[in-house]
């Protein structure tokens, strides 16, 4: 670039004359003028000029001299940062012709954003020093800096400046010169790392916004994550210079998100690319860091408005319909199956009773389901309010819950075997007296059905729960109740038309046999819960709870054997049983706390690797297809998916392709990283299966209940056009 301006030459001549005058004055006062100044002369014109400065007046004994390039810009004029933005050029320096200079490294203080004619540019205005660390070839020897500086300064026109600067430092004691403070101040404005701002990068995400544009979000966390007026500069984008970020309060405590909108490149081009971010927050507060954004859904990016805690009930109807449908479908999901046994027994028992009583019983069960959902919703609202991360089925991550459910299953089994009586379906006469207790039993059955149901997701449930949990308390409650309504619809239908029950077979001896069988089912559920507990809380915890559960069963059996004969012993047995149940819950909680982290799931032989965001980003960067399976030991649908689709031909064969990376996220125990990943899809529960690939960097979300066809199609789609054409 050749010099375009002519003014600087005449101007510097004028300056020289002035400098001469100063020199003559100094001489006339016989002041000991320093042999070498710590600054070169200014070179430039009245719009922009530049000079070299050093912190010390001599080279001293250190190997490095702190120097700087000082720019002086007239009002309205600016020069550019190393990344100029939509237009502009950064200053360039050649040190050719310097003496005793091994290397000079330039630092860039945090830039300022300016918007001129609608263009976002990043640079400096006024007076700015770019710090330079000048490394000497021979420490202690004199230094001659000879810098050829080309830079662009703009206001309403752009002027390329060309300046040749000379500065000599003698050998001698490195006494700080008058410019030392300016260099130190500039160095303090050079961005450090995020930790210096008290922040940590949680993740970077990019989501498509239209065909050619995308949005970028940085989620940051810190104890004092209070950014007052942040700005964010990105280097490494394929093109375009985004405007200032929006600051979005995070969903979790201590989190904030910075969202850049309108990036002129598709998300596919940005995902996996290493970008350098410079975050500034007022003078002197700046950090530079790199991140590789992962592809995300547009909906999952932090919105422009923080979700208020109390959203009014202005929710569109669809989420309700979805929640209702999801609830209805939960009736036939495997997780509710054991409770289905209880339900069936209840219905069969009702076949003989009066219509009004049947109706009441059914309504009580429905009430139990609804109460269960209300309790769930309240618990989640409470957890959300205190900033805990929440999700669907998270109670299965708690050892005490698993222990309690195990014990409940044992109790229900004992009930079905007639060892104890939770409900007393013994004819009309008993109904009048035991009516309340009966209803309590039905209510409890309903509530437990709900708690168990959350161990799996059903179609629509994921969407509805995701919608609800991202919103305020009223929405959570409303959506959950809609789901409860769906789950209890069979009861409600029965209550509305009790005649339906008449079609069930009449009670008889077969009922006793069926009850025994269902009791075995429930014990199976208890075993399954113990297995989950083994993975959540560790071997010793599971063993302890298992022994206690066996003891409980034994005690109840013994108590039953005693029959009505020995009232005292029976009482003791009852107390012992209660004690055992309580002990199991306590043991689970204490045992798990002692165990700390339980043994990880044995997956040595598996082709699945543990999920991390980094592994995903790296897989994508290598051009691989990445399959993510978010699962949990307690999620029955997940197990069904694995057993019937993922681990079986033809899917297992397809997944063995060399360009496929398999990542499994195990949500059996609480894991914030996995919770966040789920939330990035607006999900709050498992299963979640996502297929990424060159053609689908944002991921293809598979349905909750997998089919081989779905998985294979998604794999093909993720591979993109090229491979599809090869087939």
């Amino acid at each position, binding site marked *: 670039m050749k010099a375009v301006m002519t003014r600087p030459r005449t101007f510097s001549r004028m300056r020289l004359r002035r400098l001469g005058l100063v020199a003559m004055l100094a001489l006339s006062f016989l002041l000991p003028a320093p042999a070498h100044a710590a600054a070169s002369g200014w070179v430039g014109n009245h719009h922009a000029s530049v000079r070299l400065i050093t912190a010390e007046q001599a080279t001293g004994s250190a190997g490095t001299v702190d120097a700087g390039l000082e720019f002086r810009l007239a009002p309205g004029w600016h020069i550019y940062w190393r990344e100029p933005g939509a237009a502009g050029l950064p200053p360039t320096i050649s040190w050719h012709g310097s003496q005793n200079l091994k290397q000079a490294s330039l630092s860039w203080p945090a830039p300022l954003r300016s918007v001129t*004619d609608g263009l976002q540019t990043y640079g400096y205005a006024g007076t700015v020093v770019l710090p330079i660390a000048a490394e000497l070839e021979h420490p202690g020897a004199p230094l001659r800096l000879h810098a050829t500086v080309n830079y662009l300064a703009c206001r309403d026109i752009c002027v390329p400046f060309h300046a040749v600067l000379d500065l000599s430092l003698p050998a001698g004691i490195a006494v700080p010169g008058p410019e030392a403070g300016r260099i130190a101040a500039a160095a303090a404005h050079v961005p450090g790392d995020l930790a210096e701002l008290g922040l940590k990068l949680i993740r970077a995400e990019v989501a498509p916004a239209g065909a050619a544009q995308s949005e970028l979000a940085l989620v940051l966390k810190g104890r004092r994550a209070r950014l007052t007026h942040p700005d964010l500069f990105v280097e490494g984008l394929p*093109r375009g210079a985004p405007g200032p970020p929006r600051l979005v309060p995070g969903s979790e405590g201590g989190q904030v998100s910075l969202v850049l909108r309108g990036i002129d490149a598709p998300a596919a081009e940005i995902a996996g690319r290493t970008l350098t971010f410079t975050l500034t927050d007022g003078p002197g507060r700046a950090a530079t860091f790199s991140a590789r954004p992962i592809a995300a859904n547009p909906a999952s990016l932090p919105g422009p408005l923080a979700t208020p805690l109390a959203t009014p009930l202005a929710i569109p109807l669809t989420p309700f319909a979805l929640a209702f449908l999801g609830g209805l479908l939960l009736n036939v999901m495997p997780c509710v199956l054991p409770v289905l046994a209880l339900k069936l027994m209840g219905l069969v028992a009702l076949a003989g009773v009066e219509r009004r009583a049947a109706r009441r019983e059914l309504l009580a069960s429905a009430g139990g389901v609804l109460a269960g959902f209300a309790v769930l919703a309240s618990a989640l609202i409470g957890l959300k309010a205190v900033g805990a991360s929440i999700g669907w089925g998270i109670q299965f991550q708690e050892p005490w819950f698993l222990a309690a459910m195990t014990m409940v299953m044992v109790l229900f089994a004992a009930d079905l075997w007639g060892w104890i009586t939770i409900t007393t379906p013994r004819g009309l006469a008993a109904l009048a007296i035991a009516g309340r207790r009966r209803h309590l039993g039905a209510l409890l059955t309903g509530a437990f059905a709900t708690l168990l149901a959350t161990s799996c997701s059903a179609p629509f449930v994921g969407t509805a729960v995701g919608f609800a949990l991202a919103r305020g308390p009223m929405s959570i409650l409303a959506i959950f109740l809609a789901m409860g309504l769906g789950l209890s619809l069979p009861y409600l239908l029965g209550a509305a038309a009790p005649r339906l029950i008449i079609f069930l077979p009449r009670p008889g001896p077969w009922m006793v046999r069926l009850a025994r069988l269902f009791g075995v089912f429930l014990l199976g559920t208890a075993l399954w819960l113990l297995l989950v507990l083994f993975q959540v809380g560790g071997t010793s915890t599971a063993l302890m709870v298992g022994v206690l559960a066996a003891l409980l069963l034994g005690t109840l059996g013994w108590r039953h054997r005693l029959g009505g004969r020995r009232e005292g012993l029976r009482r003791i047995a009852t107390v012992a049983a209660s004690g055992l149940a309580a002990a199991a819950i306590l043991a689970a909680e204490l045992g798990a706390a002692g165990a700390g982290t339980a043994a990880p799931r044995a997956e040595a032989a598996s082709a699945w690797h543990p999920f991390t965001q980094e592994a995903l980003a790296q897989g994508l960067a290598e051009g691989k297809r990445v399959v993510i399976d978010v699962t949990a030991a307690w999620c029955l649908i997940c197990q069904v998916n694995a057993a019937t689709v993922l681990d079986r031909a033809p899917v297992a064969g397809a997944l063995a392709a060399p360009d496929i990376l398999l990542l499994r996220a195990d949500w059996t125990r609480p894991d914030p990283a996995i919770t966040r990943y789920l939330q990035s899809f607006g999900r709050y529960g498992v299963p979640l299966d996502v297929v990424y690939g060159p053609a689908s960097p944002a991921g293809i979300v598979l349905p909750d209940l997998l089919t081989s066809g779905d998985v294979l199609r998604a794999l093909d789609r993720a591979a993109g056009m090229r491979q599809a054409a090869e087939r």
Partner: protein
Amino acid sequence: MAGSPLPRRVLLVSLGALGLLATPRRSNALPLDTLSDALERVNPRTVPPPISFKTATGARQTLADYRGKGLVLNIWATWCGPCVAEMPSLDRLAADIAPFGIAVLPISIDAMGLPAVKSFYATNRIEHLPMLLDPDGDVAHAFKLDGIPTSFIVDRSGRITGRVEGSVQWDTKQAIAMLRNLVEPLPQSG
């Protein structure tokens, strides 16, 4: 409710208002200077320095290649913010003013030459402007420019009649009328 006429009128008016909002604005969203404000008339008209520049095909051209036409000569670069800001309006001007025998010649002083200009034209959908290159900055040097963008209005007899420093809104009716006026040679009276 008195009847339907009032609501219908309200509806029509609202639709009209919506339509106005939805109509894409032809001019740039951000106000650039008007030509009449930014124009420095060159009086008496002067002969430009001998300059040459390259076309996209590598052919060398001089202003003599455009004899008889009025010219809007614009010296710019892709790294220059104000230049970039006025390019879309310059592009529209080229289309609007061509029927009057006036050519718009943007000469890029990008050191990278054609690739830089080509990619800029593509991303900014510049369709009516030629790609003219001066990668060594000779044109800017010959004109002794203070900076860019600087534009010169050259009349049909090849003399400079006006000079504009900085970016302006080129495609307004007033600007086009002004340019048509400026490029007419002076009557041979004195």
